[in-house]
């Protein structure tokens, strides 16, 4: 949907390729809320370990990976000029394996069943590797990289590493292989998944979309050219340090500092918009960047003081706030555009305009629900009694998005079925 790579309608993936992933992500978000609610009410049997890994993987894979794969299927042809052949079939394979594999993984965490761990490692590993290696291979072949496409290369490379390490861990938990390196691999796994895959992908995309969507000044060249490569290199060094028995706190602090600088520059860019208008997606970006600064500051404080709690917990929650905010900002830009663009190009003169697909006011309402959810989560650290509000707000937040996605799909189908098409 962006104007750099040269997209023709033949190359653009069908709108449902993207929307299917977004709907899947929203459903997993609702499920996450229901699961947390079940835990608080004592109706789901959990222990501390299964509870945290289930929440983390529902969020990281069910919600984030689904949103990010949907966005990547749409953006790769445009940002990097990469054409994914047969996108409907390939995205469907990924989507199904992701859903079934993740469900197997969640039940494996819940029951510690060996066969479920094996099933999850095969299905989830295959589904995630299928899409990420497919995209990575196409990106490697790109001759003239932009800062965005180069960053996506590092992000997808990080994801492939995180998936392979994740499969190793699942097989270890299932008792199929010796888990001598489990603790170090776990740190490497989540470092590449959170700081490599999720954050580097957001940074790469922002280099292109922040300037284009919001008419801001460009990012400094040194940042757009070298930041993603520098962070990826630091992550590799961190893993080397881990396996060499050396501490990684200096490297962690360096990574955190780079993320803080990036977030600060992004906020500054957003304040320098040429035509500042009231737009929920800008609010999501600003809030997301503020959350990234908070999350990384907590890592710095924790490293400086040598104290883990409550800093690491605040860091984790604010990191979730950061990632979800940016994803929501992108979804509210991508979905109305895609529905309008595909219908308009097909010649439907009565194609709904972007604000008819999802009205900007609806996105603003979602912003307040989302901000309430994240702040409730953080405030529940000192005020534990308010934790009951968290799953309620989470269910409302993802249901709100799900409802608007379904309505967008309905409007798309309705226009195709019941309105006149012109040749132009």
């Amino acid at each position, binding site marked *: 949907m962006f104007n750099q790579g040269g997209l023709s*309608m033949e190359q653009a993936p069908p709108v449902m390729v993207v929307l299917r992933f977004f709907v899947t992500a929203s459903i997993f978000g609702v499920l996450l809320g229901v699961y947390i609610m079940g835990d608080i009410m004592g109706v789901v049997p959990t222990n501390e370990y299964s509870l945290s890994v289930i929440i983390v993987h529902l969020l990281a894979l069910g919600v984030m990976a689904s949103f990010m794969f949907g966005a990547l299927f749409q953006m790769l042809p445009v940002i990097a000029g990469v054409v994914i052949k047969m996108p409907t079939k390939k995205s469907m394979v990924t989507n199904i394996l992701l859903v079934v594999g993740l469900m197997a993984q969640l039940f494996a965490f819940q029951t510690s069943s060996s066969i479920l761990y094996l099933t999850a490692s095969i299905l989830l590993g295959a589904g995630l590797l299928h899409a990420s290696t497919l995209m990575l291979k196409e990106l490697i072949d790109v001759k003239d990289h932009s800062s965005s496409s180069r960053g996506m290369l590092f992000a997808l490379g990080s994801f492939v590493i995180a998936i392979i390490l994740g499969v190793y861990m699942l097989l270890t938990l299932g008792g199929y292989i010796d888990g001598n390196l489990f603790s170090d691999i776990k740190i490497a796994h989540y470092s590449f998944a959170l700081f490599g895959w999720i954050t580097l992908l957001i940074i790469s995309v922002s280099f292109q979309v922040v300037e284009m969507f919001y008419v801001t000044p460009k990012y400094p060249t040194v940042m757009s050219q070298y930041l993603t490569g520098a962070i990826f290199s630091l992550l590799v060094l961190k893993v080397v340090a881990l396996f060499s028995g050396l501490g990684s706190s200096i490297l962690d602090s360096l990574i955190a500092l780079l993320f803080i600088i990036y977030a600060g520059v992004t906020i500054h860019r957003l304040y320098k918009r040429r035509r500042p208008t009231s737009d929920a997606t800008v609010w999501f970006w600003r809030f997301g960047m503020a959350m990234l600064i908070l999350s990384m500051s907590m890592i710095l404080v924790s490293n400086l003081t040598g104290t883990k709690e409550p800093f690491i917990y605040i860091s984790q929650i604010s990191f979730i706030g950061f990632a979800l905010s940016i994803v929501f900002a992108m979804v509210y830009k991508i979905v109305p555009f895609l529905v309008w663009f595909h219908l308009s190009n097909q010649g439907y003169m009565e194609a709904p305009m*972007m604000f008819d697909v999802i009205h900007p006011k609806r996105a603003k309402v979602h912003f307040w629900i989302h901000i309430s959810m994240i702040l409730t989560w953080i405030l529940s650290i000192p005020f534990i009694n308010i934790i009951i509000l968290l799953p309620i707000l989470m269910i409302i937040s993802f249901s709100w998005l799900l409802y608007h996605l379904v309505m967008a799909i309905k409007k798309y189908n309705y226009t195709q079925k019941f309105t006149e098409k012109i040749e132009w």
Partner: protein
Amino acid sequence: MIKIPLDARDMEHPIPLQLALKHLQSMTQEEYLYMIHRKNPIPLIELAKEKEFVYLVEQDKYEIWHILISKNQNIKLEELIDV
């Protein structure tokens, strides 16, 4: 020929594309779109190509893109560009 001017330099994406597409869909043989933009709007050009419009794209010395598009196959866009 009737000029349809569109200054998209300060517009947020995808408003320029939205407006340009609207003009192209209702364009007559006597009209041409003259758009100025801070970026080269490649999707718009690709669409113009697909729909067999004639087009001309040039960047001026201030790095502003001038995009001219018309339905009329006999139009001489190079005579209408103001760079």
